[in-house]
Structures are given as C-alpha cells and as structure tokens.
C-alpha cells in the first residue's frame, strides 16, 4: 500500500501544456480512477507517475520517498498497458518472469512468484503459450500477471479494458475489482469509460484540459458535479442544461418557476442568470397537471428497453427525461413535468463552476 502525493505537476510538449499544475493525494489502498476524454492529460499523468515521462516541474512522492527522478523500475510499480505490450517472442511464463529475470532473481523465486500470480488469475494452463496464441482476454490476464509478479505496492492501469469486447470487458472489470480487494494495494486506473470509473473507483478524478476538474467518490461526482464539464461528461444519457434566472430561493425558466429551498448552495447565491442542470432520471413526467409541475411539449420518444428516454421542450429549451417504458406510449403531445430537487445542479454560466 502506497500513498501517492503529486504536487504541482507540469508537463508540456513544445507549446502545448498537457498537465497544468496538477496536484493529487492518493491514500494507501485506494482505487483511484483518472477519468476524462482523450487528450485530457490522464495518460500523461499516469506516465509521469510511472516514471515513463519526464515532467518539467512538480514532485511525485510515494509515501515519504521522492520518486520524481527515479527510473520506472526503481519505483516498485506494476503497470498494465492498453495494448498489453506483451513481449511477442516470449511465452506467458517468460513475460511474467521478465522483471525478476533482469533483476537477477533465482529460478525458484521466479517460479514461485509466477505460479502465485498465475493461480490468482487462473492462467496456469496458458503459461507456455506465446502472446500470439492467446485470446484478447487471456493476454489481458497475462499482462496483469506480469504486473503482479513484481510484488509492487502500486499498480497502474492505462485503459486496460478498451481493447476487449463488451462482454469480456464486464468480466475483466469485476476481476480487477476483486483483485484490488484481495491485494489491498493502491490502484490507479486510467479510462475514458464512465461506467468503469463508477463501478471500480473508490475515488474518481475527472480530468479535462490538463487539470483535475473534480476528485471525489463516484456518488459525489455523479450527484454533485463540481463543474459543468463534469456534469456533462459523467452520466448517460447526459444531464440536460437549461438557461435560467436565479432569484433568492426560486429559479425561473421562462415562465416556469422552480422552488430551490432544498438546494444546498456551495456559497450564498447572487441573483442573476444561471445554468440549470437536471439528470434525466430526476425528471418526472405526468399526463395531467399536478402540484409543482410545468407544462412541456413532448417532441420524441426513444425506447431503450429497460426505460424510455423522452425528449421535451420546455418554453423553447430542450431536455430529456428517463421514464419507465410503460409510461411513454400513453402520453399526449403536451405533458407536465416535475423536477426532483435532489437531481438539480446549478452552475455559473461564465465559469462553469457549481453554485
């Protein structure tokens, strides 16, 4: 178990700043997921933690040890790559034992560690095959095995599931999660897939444009997104955003007035224009007028099996609602919608920060 402390990391390629003063404190035994779209700097951050990429300034500490200048192998890490990066000419066994071999371990030590990791991952029967003779999922296991053999206290995963098909991905996801529980080591996992982030992480760091937008538990990230970017990026179907005007304890979207007395403001609000965000599943749709609803026009229905996504027009602004499938067909063109206060997020339209 390693505590990872990252202070003011800066990395740029030429004039492009990929990491802009990134700081992060990862507690021992944590499963931290770095989540973000491609080009957000998450892989660069992981490379910097691994020591594969030099940084221009900032420091990286593992526990109390400053590892900023250390080579990757001196950091006692295990790493799993997106393409697995298995050595094509070596058997699975040789791949897994490679790190021990170059560090001068004895045959018995290598055999013991490889057997242990192979048992853990149930790949004992594959050990004498070469990567070319393994399926995608099997390669993935060998790659994880190679990382385990090194007895690292910190494991790094660079989008390890993105090359697998959907079914295998779910399987390996569960496996990595149980591995984390069994090893108790610190895991840092890079992905652009929010489902992976939500299911795996103890904490998620959402990155964009070379900075960490928000770090928190998956629930935090989902329910109280710190910026409009996070709110938009996390959640599928995506949160709807509407222009609104804030007045004391209420909010106006056109003629619709919404009660905000249950909303937890980050700081005392100032009246004026705001961005109103609402998760689709927090929009209730009724055929008739009820208390606290607003009339809206139904423009499209998208049945998705487990539920149905409705596209609505509220005084000229578009939003979506996620409803049980049996509600959809019965609705007329004019419906009445209500907002669950717990699903509301308000953002400053200029800075994008949560209010």
């Amino acid at each position: 178990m390693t505590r990872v402390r990252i202070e003011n990391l800066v990395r740029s390629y030429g004039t492009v700043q990929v990491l802009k003063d990134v700081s992060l404190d990862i507690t021992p035994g944590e499963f931290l997921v770095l989540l973000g779209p491609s080009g957000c700097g998450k892989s660069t951050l992981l490379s910097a933690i691994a020591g594969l990429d030099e940084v221009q300034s900032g420091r990286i500490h593992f526990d109390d040890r400053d590892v900023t200048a250390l080579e990757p192998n001196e950091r006692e890490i295990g790493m799993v790559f997106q393409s697995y990066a298995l050595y094509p000419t070596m058997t699975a066994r040789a791949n897994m034992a490679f790190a021990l071999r170059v560090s001068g371990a004895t045959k018995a030590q290598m055999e013991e560690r490889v057997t242990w990791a192979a048992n853990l991952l149930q790949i004992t029967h594959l050990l004498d095959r070469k990567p070319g003779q393994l399926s995608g999922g099997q390669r993935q296991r060998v790659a994880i095995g190679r990382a385990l053999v090194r007895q690292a206290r910190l494991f790094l995963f660079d989008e390890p599931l993105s090359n697998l098909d959907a079914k295998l991905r779910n399987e390996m996801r569960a496996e990595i999660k149980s591995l984390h529980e069994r090893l108790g080591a610190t895991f840092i996992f890079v992905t652009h897939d929010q489902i992976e982030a939500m299911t795996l992480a103890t904490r998620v760091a959402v990155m964009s444009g070379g900075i960490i937008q928000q770090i928190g538990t998956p629930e935090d990230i989902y329910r109280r997104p710190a910026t409009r970017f996070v709110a938009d990026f996390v959640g599928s179907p995506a949160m709807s955003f509407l222009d609104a005007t804030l007045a004391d304890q209420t909010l106006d979207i056109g003629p619709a007035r919404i009660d905000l007395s249950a909303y937890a403001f980050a700081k005392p609000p100032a009246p004026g224009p705001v961005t109103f965000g609402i998760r689709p599943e927090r929009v209730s749709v009724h055929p008739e007028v009820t208390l606290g609803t607003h009339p809206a026009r139904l423009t499209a229905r998208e049945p998705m099996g487990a539920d149905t996504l409705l596209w609505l027009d509220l005084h000229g602004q578009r939003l979506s609602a996620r409803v049980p499938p049996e509600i959809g067909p019965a609705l007329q063109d004019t419906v009445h919608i209500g907002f669950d206060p717990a699903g509301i997020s308000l953002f400053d339209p200029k800075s994008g920060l949560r209010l």
Partner: protein
Amino acid sequence: MTISHRTRPRLRPRTVAQLVLLPTILLTVIGYHGSILWTIVLSFTPSRMLPVYRWTGFDMYERLLNTERWQVAYQNLFIFGGLYIGFCLLFGLVLAILLDQGVKGRSILQTIFLYPIALSFVVTGLAWKWLLNPTTGLQDFVRSLGWENFTLDLLSSPDRAIYTLVIAGVWHSAGLTMVILFAGLQSIDHEIWRASRVDGIPRWRMYLHVVIPMLWPVVVTCLVLLSMNVVRSYELIVVLTGGGPGFSTDVPAKFIIDHYFARQSVCLASAAETLRLLTVAAILAISALSRRGGEAAT
C-alpha cells in the same frame, strides 16, 4: 519474501541510447563531413601526392575545366547517365506492364530479369567484355550465321564504346527498375481497372493516361537509385573499356581515382570531386522538387 533489487548504480536507458549513438555520430562527423570538407579544402591547394596547404584559389578548377579528358569524362556522365537511366526506365516499365498482364511463369521470368542485380559491376563488365569480344564473341557468331560483313566492334571504336557501357549497365539494372515499378503497379487500386471496363476505356489508354502518371513517385525513386549508380559508376568502365579507347569512355569517378592514386594530382582530383558533389546536390534538389511536384499533382 523479498526480491533482491540490483543495487549498483547504473545508467538510465535513455542515456545509454545516447551513448550508443555516439560512435556513429563521431564516425559520421569525421568520416563523412570531415572528409568532404577536407576534399573541398584540398581543391583550393596545389597538392600533388600529399596534402599541401597553400591557397591557390580557383586555379585548379580553371585547369580542370580546360583539361580535355575531364570535359570528355563529364560529358560522358550525362551521355551514359541519360541513356542508362532512360533505357532502364523504359525497359523496366515495359517488362513490368507485360508481367502485369497475368502471364504464366511470372515468378521465373522475374527471377531471370532481376538476377543481374545480384552481380557486381566487375562481373557484369567481364561477362559483357567476353560476349562482345570481336574474335569469338557475338560478331563472330553473327558472321557464322551468314552475315560475313557484320561488324560489332563496339569496344574498339571511340565513338561507340560508350554504348557498350549503356548496354551492360541496362542489363545489370533494368530488373531492379522492373521490380520497383511492378510493385508500384500492383499497389494501384484494382477498382480503377473495373471502372475502366465499365467506361469502355482500352487498357493501353489506361496505362498511358492513368496508370503511368500514378506511378510518378515510384519513377522518382527509381531515378534517384539509378542516378546514384551513374554518379558512382567506376567498376564497369574500368573492367569493360578501361576508359578507352583513348579516354573516350572516361567518367568522372575514373578520372578522379586515376588522379588521386595513379597520377598523384590530389588537387585536380579534389577539384573534380567538388564539382561532382555539386552535380549530385543538384540532382537531389531536382528530385526532391519533382517528388514534391508529383505529390502536389496527385
């Protein structure tokens, strides 16, 4: 259980990568760049057998340009080069297109067309010299068939000896051109052939107006390779004609090597080298421009 980690300090792999390149960089800087500079410097001195460092300006160039042997040699570079490159390309293109018509035994034919490239120019020269020798060679053979007055004394004629170089050179290199152009033909999208059949365009017109223009970048590649052979050509001339009769088939490379070592006129040879270097630079510049032009056109 703990695993012993290597404790002795060692260089970072990237540092090692840089160190690995160091000998090559030194070799390059001294061997190539140093040598080229040295040659250019020597061309401005009156060095005979050993280097002498006294500035004589452009005297050597003046002497060189007034030397008849150099004039012939430099001219031959373009006569030989033009014919060699032209025929290699033409012959190579024709062979490549014919082989592309789905002929039987293609790989055997290709093997036969290409094998001379495995041989040295020394062997090429010796074989052709033997084939063209007037007493028992091709001339004798044709006469024995009944043409009593047939003469093919290419090697002994100052005007025509250069053509033997061209024939032997084309024999040696046409196969390479063919292989490169054939690969180019194969890489052309097969859809265009189907499109041409739908449009009813004859095959020869397709080659002339569509395929050959598409091959332009490959042709430039061949041009560069063949030009390098021309500029370096030495062995073939030494073995086949010895630069003769007289110095009618002399080329710059032979002129230069003779003046460096046999005639001990380092200054003149260096001046000739420098001029040849400028010629190469010009060829490279033109080929770079034409490649860019070809890319812009497509």
